[in-house]
């Protein structure tokens, strides 16, 4: 058994949000820098996007004013015992301190339908726990902006639907989103499981390095086909036309029921921010 004080989790969550809101991961930075755009307006926008990443990095300023709703995936080893404050309170405290000390925008309202009063500290976070084998705790954090989050889609396809129907649904979702999610985007796709499982996988897929190599040949082919089709939509950087509409398509799958084929799409904007740490 390994005893971990939840203060350690809090401190890590805090540091990770402070960092993720200001510095982009290398895969996304490189993809944006190396993007080969043919549209002159698109080229100009990519230059602005890259300059912004640079300024944010050097001046410790949030890359985007939408510092997001705080999403946390916590993978807890079965040999770990938490001592101290309740784990959920510690995670929320980490979020609270990061958003205060980082001068990040507090974007969470308490009641989604009625008075929509701001909670003023960007909590509660969205937290998913997973039990895994071992004595480590893996923390994944994502400040998720809602320009892109609002463009997410879920569809319960039929088992009779084929690969092409999955591809079409994903491409159609991105086409409908158009300029709204701040392209060039990263597309997270969850296929299988149940309705909510597919949606969670679509979110979790956004943590994957956009250059990951998929071992399943069929899935790898599907990723490439979706990416090509998205870049042929003409959306371009900021949706003002061009061929660089997405820089990555990340797919996660799970077994599903004989009667179903759930598919979800979760979109990350060009500042798709996330960080992962194992302690």
């Amino acid at each position, binding site marked *: 058994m390994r005893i971990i004080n939840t203060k350690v989790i809090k401190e890590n969550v805090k540091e990770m949000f402070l960092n993720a809101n200001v510095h982009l991961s290398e895969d996304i930075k490189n993809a944006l820098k190396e993007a080969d755009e*043919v*549209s002159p*307006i*698109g080229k*100009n*926008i990519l230059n*602005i*996007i890259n*300059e*912004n990443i640079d*300024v*944010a990095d050097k*001046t410790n*300023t*949030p*890359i*985007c*004013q*939408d*510092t997001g709703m705080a999403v946390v995936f916590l993978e807890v080893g079965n040999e770990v015992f938490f001592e101290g404050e309740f784990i959920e309170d510690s995670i929320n405290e980490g979020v609270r301190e990061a958003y205060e000390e980082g*001068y*990040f*925008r*507090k*974007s969470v309202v308490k009641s989604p339908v009625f008075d*929509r009063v*701001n909670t*003023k500290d960007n909590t509660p976070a969205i937290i998913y726990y997973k039990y895994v084998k071992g004595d480590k705790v893996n923390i994944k954090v994502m400040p998720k902006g809602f*320009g892109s989050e*609002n463009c997410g889609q879920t569809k319960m396809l039929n088992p009779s639907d084929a690969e092409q129907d999955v591809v079409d649904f994903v491409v159609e979702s991105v086409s409908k989103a*158009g*300029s*709204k999610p*701040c392209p060039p985007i990263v597309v997270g796709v969850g296929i299988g499981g149940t309705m909510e499982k597919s949606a969670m996988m679509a979110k979790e897929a956004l943590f994957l390095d956009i250059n990951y190599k998929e071992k399943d040949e069929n899935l790898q082919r599907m990723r490439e086909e979706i990416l090509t089709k998205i870049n*042929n*939509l*003409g*959306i*371009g950087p*900021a*949706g*003002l*036309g*061009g*061929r660089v509409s997405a820089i990555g398509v990340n797919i996660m799958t799970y077994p599903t029921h004989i009667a179903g084929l759930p598919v979800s799409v979760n979109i990350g*904007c*060009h*500042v798709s921010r996330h960080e992962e740490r194992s302690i």
Partner: protein
Amino acid sequence: MKRLTLPLKEEDIAGLKAGESVYLTGYIYTARDAAHKRLYNAIKENKSIPIDLSKSVIYYAGPCPNKPGEVIGSCGPTTSMRMDKYTPLLMENGLRVIIGKGERGDIVLDAIKKYKGVYFAAVGGSGALIKNCIKSSEVIAYDDLLSEAIRKMYVEDLPVITAIDSNGKNLYKTEREKYKR
């Protein structure tokens, strides 16, 4: 590159063509979802509103708080389409110049043509860069809305692209068509 001083004159607006890049200097007012709802409801109920729409430029934005010694935090544009249902009424009441990001619905396109307005796009997700163009910022209304309050800001050389011009030419449509295959 074209440089314009705010508020824009009728002839400035008439001279703008979709696709044209412009640097804007002058006062703008931030307003996004919650502030729009209040402005809209106040107009509907014949109550006074805190800004003179005919002399104002509205910027769809909700900034990060400023660090000590800074004017404002990161301050890029938010998705404009969520404001679509409020925009025609604001234009009917004098609003002509809007800055945001992303495409607009037909009701806004029609209003822009009817009232001879202009819609500029700032680059979404470039809040750290835009922050450097903002030289002053003060909350002038709805301070309980925090980041969604109405702020009066002085901007210098704010880079924008003319996305929908006063003739209704819509860059989001024309450019996407151009690169589709």
